[in-house]
Every structure is written in C-alpha cells, then in structure tokens.
C-alpha cells in the first residue's frame, strides 16, 4: 500500500541524506520524494510517497521521522483529502508531419510542447500520476525517448470533502 507524507524539515546540510538514510536502514521503500523551499525561511518541505507493507509500518515511518531533530512537522496525507501534482517531461519522436496529431492528442491533458526540433519534441504535463501514466501510454506509439518525472508534491485541502472525510482518521497529523 501507499503512504503519502508531507514533512517540514530544517534546511540543513545532510537533511535529505538523514531522511533517505533512515528509510534505507529501516527498510522503508521510497516511491517518490520531492524537496524544495517552502513558505518559511530556513525550512524545506518534503513530499514523500512510500510503498509500505501495512499500517504498523506506516505508524513506524511516521514516528521514526518525527523523532529526527531536523524534522519539524510530519503530516500523514494518506487518508486525507489532499491536492497532489506531479510534473513530467517527455521527449517524443515526432517528425514534422506527425506534429498536429501529437498536438490534438496531448491537448485534452493540458500538456504542452516546450521544446521542438526536427525529429523530436519535449512534452510537459502536470497532474496526478495516473493522468501522466495515461498520457505516456498514448505517446508510446510515437516513440518515447526520454522521460523525467518529479514525483508528487502535495498539500492538504482546506476543506476536506465528503469522500476525503469518509476515510479521514484522527490523529494522523502530528506536530512534532
């Protein structure tokens, strides 16, 4: 099962190593991890998507992270209503005569071409991992040459929707 965590961490040398090293030592499997500046100076926000065996492991992950001195906040978004986005860049084989087909294909995904050459183009798409997977499937017949994905960035919604609330469990968001 998947676990989605939002962390605030001190922007210190080695903090990323500290987190990934912890996952490595404890045998927690990272699917994606993103790090960047956030609203607070000196603090970074990390979004981590993990592959975990069960609830017990999820609980351990949260506690092990929370006890790190450089981890300021751990929020488990797994069962919360959150907005999540991923950015993907794809280099696709696209001779000039194919370009209009390609355009019409990517347009419903609100994807765009951000680099064009004679033989290839680079498509940029943003969205949920599922949406990105769907677009990649459609692009494969053209010839996908290179793919780069950022991993998820996530924030909880201000208002938890009905579906979000339905699975929301208490005590999963902790200030540490």
């Amino acid at each position, binding site marked *: 099962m998947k676990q989605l965590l939002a962390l605030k961490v001190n922007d210190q*040398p*080695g903090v990323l*190593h*500290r987190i990934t*090293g*912890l996952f490595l*030592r404890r045998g927690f499997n990272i699917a994606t991890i993103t790090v960047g500046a956030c609203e607070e100076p000196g603090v970074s926000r990390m979004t981590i998507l993990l592959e975990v065996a069960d609830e*017990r492991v999820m*609980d*351990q992950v949260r*506690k*092990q992270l*929370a*006890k*790190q*001195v*450089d*981890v*300021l*906040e751990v929020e488990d978004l797994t069962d919360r209503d959150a907005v999540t986005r991923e950015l993907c860049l794809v280099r696709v084989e696209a001779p000039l005569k194919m370009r209009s087909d390609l355009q019409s294909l990517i347009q419903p995904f609100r994807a765009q071409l951000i680099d064009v050459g004679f033989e290839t183009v680079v498509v940029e798409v943003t969205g949920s991992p599922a949406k990105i997977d769907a677009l990649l499937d459609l692009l494969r017949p053209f010839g996908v040459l290179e793919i780069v994905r950022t991993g998820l960035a996530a924030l909880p919604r201000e208002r938890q929707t009905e579906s979000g609330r339905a699975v929301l469990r208490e005590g999963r968001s902790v200030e*540490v």
Partner: protein
Amino acid sequence: MSFEGPEGARAEALSPDAAAPVGTEAPEGGSSGQDGGPQPEPPPVYRGADLLVEVLKEEGAEMLFGIPGGATINFYDALYNSGIPYVLARHEQGAIHAADGYARISGKVPVVTGTSGPGSTNLMTGIANAWFDSVPMVIIAGQVSTSVMGTDAFQESPIFSMTMGITKHNYQLMRGEDMPRVVKESFYLARTGRKGPVLIELPKDMTSNEIPYRKPVEMQLRAYTPKPKIDRALVEKVKHDLARAKRPVIVAGAGIVHAGASELLRAFVEKARVPVVHTLLGLGTLPSDHPLSLGMGGMHGTVWANMALHECDFLLNIGSRFDDRLTGALEHFAPRAWIAHVDIDEAELGKVLAEDYPIHGDAREALEILLDGAVDPSPSEEWLAYLDSLRREYPLWYRTDRPYLQPQRVVEIASELASDDVIVVTDVGQHQMWVAQFFRFRRPGRFVTSGGLGAMGFGLPAAIGAQIADRDALVLTFLGDGGLQMTEQELILLREYDLPVKILLLNNNSLGMVRQWQELFYEERYSSTLFNFQPDFMRLADAYGIVGRRVETEEEARTALEEAFRTRAPYLIEFVIDPMANVLPMVPPGNGVHEMEGVKPE
C-alpha cells in the same frame, strides 16, 4: 598521575574573564552604528579551539576521553592547561567505551574526541554501542579543513554521514559562529529525552579561525520535545486493569535505570504484588534476592521468568524495547496477555508488538502515577506461588561432574565476596550471561554491559571509565579471553590513572558463545572458535604493572578473589575454566520463550 594534564602548561588560564579576545572587530564591522546612536559592544573574538574549550566548560564537560591527531591538534593545544580532566586512551575504541562506562556510572555527559579519518572510524563501534544502549555522550570528531573536504584529503573520512544512523543527532560544523549553539544543543540532546550519543564533526579550520562569541547562546531545537506529555488516564487504566490481573508481570528495562526510578518500581510492585522480569540492562532495578524479582528473561533467562513472560495475562513493560533476545519468537511472547508499554521514545511503541496500552512517557512519571493514591494488590498469589514452584523445580544450575573450574561458580564466589557498592562490568559473550544469571545485583545503576550492540572489547575500557566515575567503589570486570584481546592495550591506564579495577578473566581458550552454538546447532564443527595459541596473561599483566594470579580450582579462586578485593590496586585473575562450559538454559533461536533447553542437569 593525575587527571589534570601535563604540568607547566601555558600561562593563560582559560576562564571566561581571562580568555583574551584575539581581536575586537565585530563580525559585520561597518554596517552598524550609522545612525550615530550608541554602538553595541562588538563581541569578543576567540580562536576556535579556545572557544570550543570555553563552551565545553560552560556545558559542564567534566571528563574527556580520546586521542589527539592532526585535525584536532589545535583543540588539544587549547585543552593543554584548560583544567578539564582528560584520559588519554591507547585506541579510540578504548576511549569511547571508557566514556560509556563513565557515563553509565556518573550519570554525566562525557566528551570523546578522535581525529579525522582513522581516529573517527575507530570511534564507530563505541558510538554504535552508546546509541544502542541510550548512553549520553558528546563526540567531537576531527575533520580535515573545509577547503579540502570532499577531496579525499589525508585522513579524511565522511564521519558525518557515516554516523547518522548511530547517533541521536549529529552536526557538521561548517561555520564558526555556530559552534557555541551546536555544543550547547549537543549536550542538551545527549542528556534529555531518550539519551544518546551526539556527534560534532569539526573541520580543522573551525579550530584555527577566529570566531566572535556573544552570550547568551540560543538553542534552535523547535521541534524537539525531551519530555513527552504522558497520557495520565491511560496509565491509570493500566493500574486499574493490572489490579485485576491474575497473572501479571512487569518487564523492567534500562528506561527505569535512566529515569532513576528503581525505588519507585520496588515500591509499586511490593504494593501491587506483581513479579518483575528484568532485561539484561534492567538488572538491578530490583535487588536479585527480592522475592518479586524473577531475574533475567529471554534467551538465557530463568525458566520462571520466561514462563512468566509466556503465561502472563497482563504484561507491563517499563523502559524496554522488546529486544528479540528478550522476546524469542514473537508469536509465543505473552500470547494471552494484555500488553502495556511505557517508553520515552514514541518510535519504540508499536515497533515490535501492537501494544494494547501504548504509553509515550518517562518511566519515573509513569511509576509516580501508578503509585498515586491507593495501590490495590493484584489477585496474583496463586501465580506467584506457581512461579516460585518453577524456581524450585528448575533452579539455575551448572555442572559439578567435570574436573574443571566452573565459571558460574566463580561468579557466585565473586558475588558473595563483593561489597554492596560493587560495580559489575562485563564484556560480551558467555561470561556476560553467566554474570547476568549468577551475580546477585544489589543496587540499580551499578551494572555496566554492552546490551544492544553486544560489542566485544567493551569490558575493560568500560570498567576503566566506571572506576573513574566512582573511585572508591569496588569495580569488577568480567572478561573472556576473546574480549580482553580486543582492547587489552587499555590495561596501561590502570596504573597510569591509579584505577584499582579487578579484572576477572574467565579463560576458556575460545570464542565461547559461538563455540557453544557450533556445539549445539552445527554438529560440533568448531570453525574458527578455538584459540590454538594464546598469550601468557600473567606476563601480560606483568608487562602493564598489574598483579596477576592464575587459578584452576575453586579454592584458589576464592583465595585470589579475597586477596584482590582487599588490595587497593588493579588486579588480574585468570580463571582457567571448563573449556566446554555452556550458558544454559537457553531458548534456541526461533523458539518461543517457553521452549527452553538445558533447564535441568542431564
């Protein structure tokens, strides 16, 4: 020899007043005072090494252990005549295990130093040991200068990343002005919450650069909560339910020793009529001869302790982390019991077992709540009588049919002859388990052993540190011949620092614990466990200026121990023991705690 370091050192005393600033410029000179108002006093500027000694003193650093080197030479220059007592070990592993023993007995936070590269890598075992057993210390690891870090410079090793997994926290000091804060935070982190080692990686230029220093120093630990708020209602529910349990048991772990809560434990169990199983590091929290003490549980625990763990209906674990050596196969560990667990480290809750009452808090606080108001006794008399019957039926035993001195008998005699203030130290292996089984522990916090990491080589240097922490106590260190040979170079410290440690060497000419497993589980294929060639331990003792005795019989053993305990000098007794003596009973690996072997003489 004294601890005060070499005589005739530099004239300048390093007191806060006398430490002469080497410069007077403000760190950002020129940018202040533009409005013509009164200019703030520029902070005094120190050489980094002098500032480090200064802030160490402010943190109350009372004892340093280590070995100098190129990357730390400025620091050692500042230590010269600083007045901070210093123990010069002969190997960094010896230094850090000595600090470990010192910390466990004194309750204080020692400082350990090693230079960059090999000095730091030699510290690794000791750091891991302190981490595993939650022993507070601050480690200052030298590093090459920031200008050459990352270039594979001479004696460079990535100690910061290497120690992330075995420290409570660690720092890479890259800006001199952070030094006072980093040192202050390190001591605070080491001694609060779940204690542990904190490491500071110190590039050489941080000790030679000039650093402005202004007090007070503010810590920046906004997310760190050393003292969790305990769930009082849940503890009260434990008390309520425990008082209704017919087969209750308490597991007493090191957390009780760290919290200084042994007296509270005793008061509570006497009122609540609950028997206590000790973990290895929890030995001594009740005296061994207390009627409610069941001794140690786990792989080499007593039959009655392990049956209590297996058959209980309510298990309250205070300050132990359910180590696999205690629990055996998890499906047989307290399978019919409600399980309550008090731990100061939230990550220990739910890690091994899904507890019914997970209590995040300090052992002392939990026991205070348990003792608050009337304590109803559990209806446990039948249970206690049953466990007592097991104690009579399956007492700890050892062989009497062999023409050799039995190691367990040595432990018994030493225990009998020792004074009540005795500090017992062990190395790791068979002798460690024999001590855990047969020594009568009388006081809490007087047993020093390498629990979680199980680091051979610990026993001798740890005893050195323990004796430094309590110079008047009788310090016994039980060692095997394997473990002694891992850190025997530290023998020299006994005479150098006048430490009357009694070394009780149980010599079976083998790596006994592994040999025992090979005997029991590998068809007696003694692969690399029998020493074919050994040093002459008497001449070894002699070389280090220590009195040595070699004994082969029980009578000789008693005489030698009596003489050693009378002498206020270090002493090494080599007990030539049964080479085939085993640690029994035993929960074979993979078994439940109730499936023990060797519970009775064959």
